[in-house]
């Protein structure tokens, strides 16, 4: 089975200060054409590193094992122009648009540059095209925006400019790394609406990274939960929220306060989230898990198929049986 994106046993190790520092450990996942997959996890779990591995923009000295295929093409075999072309077809929308846009160049220059250089469009044609897309992403007065500079736009507007720029590349796959984390909830809702709608209209596949389980579940077909550089669970979004299988997913869902009702105390996870290089032997979550057994410390659980997805926990069946009594 080959989707638009297939990640197979991806392990990434950075050149640490004194010894190698693993940041991703045996990550596998795939995205089908037109499918939106959420990637959720606490900070340091390796979400951004996954994106950076896909676009092959890892820090110097990083070591990458496993392979990543985009529509069947192994990215590891691409060099130079072919790699740049592949990157252009997988635009990334980042959390902080201001860090990824040249502050001294106008929005118009930013949006039309690729069109004029790679597609040899005239300036006028490129601006028409950019204005159309700005309009599509819900930016009013698109023509005037083209003359403005990044600092004149609010965070929400600038993020829409980034989405417009991604769409101008006419991608098949959109990578979004916490695109709304820095925005207000109301702005987040608007930006998400734009992304969701355009994605569906154009049948784009998307890898959507967030730390908000409910946000991911709301807009993605499937959601993957990461912890310490590993995938703990991948499921259809609705059932992941309704009936999480992995103890980490369940704990994450209950640790988050509900907007519907107040509880006396939140159910917490002891300790703090770990990164891959701090993970213990066996299951990475075994230092914080309420259901830990000796076997969890001995062998690392494989990601195995169960119900409508995959989960990496040896005690799932047992725990599910108990919770259904």
């Amino acid at each position, binding site marked *: 089975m080959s989707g638009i994106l297939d990640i197979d046993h991806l392990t990434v190790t950075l050149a640490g200060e004194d010894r190698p520092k693993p940041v991703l450990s045996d990550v596998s996942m795939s995205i089908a054409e037109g499918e939106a997959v959420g990637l959720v996890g606490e900070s340091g779990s390796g979400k951004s590193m996954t994106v950076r591995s896909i676009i092959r923009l890892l820090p*110097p000295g990083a070591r990458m*094992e496993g392979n990543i295929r985009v529509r069947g093409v192994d990215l590891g075999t691409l060099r130079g122009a072919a790699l740049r072309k592949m990157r252009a077809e997988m635009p990334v929308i980042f959390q902080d648009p201001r860090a990824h846009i040249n*502050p001294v160049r106008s929005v118009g220059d930013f949006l039309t540059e690729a069109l004029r250089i790679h597609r040899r469009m005239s300036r006028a044609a490129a601006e028409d095209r950019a204005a159309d897309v700005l309009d599509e992403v819900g930016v009013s007065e698109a023509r005037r925006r083209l003359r403005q500079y990044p*600092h004149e736009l*609010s965070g929400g507007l600038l993020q829409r400019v980034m989405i417009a720029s991604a769409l101008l590349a006419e991608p098949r796959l959109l990578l979004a790394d916490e695109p709304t984390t820095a925005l207000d909830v109301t702005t987040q809702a608007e930006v998400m609406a734009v992304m969701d709608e355009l994605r569906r209209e154009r049948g784009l596949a998307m890898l959507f990274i967030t730390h908000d389980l409910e946000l991911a579940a709301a807009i993605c077909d499937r959601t993957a939960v990461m912890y310490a550089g590993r995938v703990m669970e991948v499921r259809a979004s609705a059932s992941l929220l309704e009936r999480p299988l992995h103890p980490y997913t369940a704990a994450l869902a209950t640790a988050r306060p509900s907007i519907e009702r107040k509880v006396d105390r939140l159910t917490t996870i002891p300790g703090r989230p770990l990164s891959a290089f701090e993970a213990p032997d066996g299951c990475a979550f075994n230092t914080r898990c309420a259901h830990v057994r000796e076997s969890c410390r001995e062998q690392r659980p494989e990601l195995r198929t169960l119900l409508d997805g995959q989960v990496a926990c040896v005690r799932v069946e047992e725990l599910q049986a108990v919770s259904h009594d």
Partner: protein
Amino acid sequence: MTATSVVRARAGARAGRGGLGPLGVTAATVIAVAVVLAAIGPELASADPNASDFAHAYGPPTPGHPLGYDSQGRDLLARLLTGARTSLLGPLWVVALGMTAGTAIAVVAAWRGGWLDSMVSSVLEVMFSFPGVLLAMLVAAVFGPGLTSAVFALAVAYIPYIARLVRSAAVAERHKPYIQALEVQGLGAFTICLRHLVPNLLPLLAAQATLFFGYAMVDLAIVSFFGLGVQPPDADWGVMVASGQSGVLQGYPAESLLAGGCIVLLVVAFNVLGERLSDGRRVHRPWRLFRRGGTA
């Protein structure tokens, strides 16, 4: 099936923060040796640095006098060793006075902000237009030449440079939440500055002091060269460069070269060390500016 690839790139050129690198360590060693010589040099010298023996004027090295003699037949090694003390003590005073006054002014301006800050900035702006050496010469002309007036004049001349650097760091520090939390606690401004703000600027201050030490050495040497700093017959490297001049013309460049070499070596060492110390310290984050303005 499994492909392995390594993203190739130059390994970190120098070990991150903390590490000085080989050049930095060399510089620190040179400085340490100079400091030791300044401390015990005069006792080390076997000959009297001021005893002249015209029979040996411009004399070549002889046993017991490994560097030879100057124009008045004084032992060059003894003069270099004795001169080390003055040549290092002078800049030390300049830096100590300049850093203390500059930091105090900067911290007060940064703390109070508002009109006081603007006024201090304007005054410093005016002071910038006086070159340090010129100011030192002016002071020497008025109060009479000598190391003391040169040191004071240079210290004053350095204040604006030091104050400007420290001020921007102090402003950033002053608005950090931990300082504001202490303000809310009811701690006095003086206590907060002395116990928290200034100590957190120390790495920056140390780096700046090292750099300015190098500048002060050159400037004091220039002033002494023109006869307005250390007065002959006291040994000082700047004075030695000057008094060796006539020898240079007559084909005996040893005195000027040796003293000048010492100055250059130490100045370079102080500069290297200062640069290394300030590496990674002054992380001003310019993009903060954009972020603030953007949401307006």
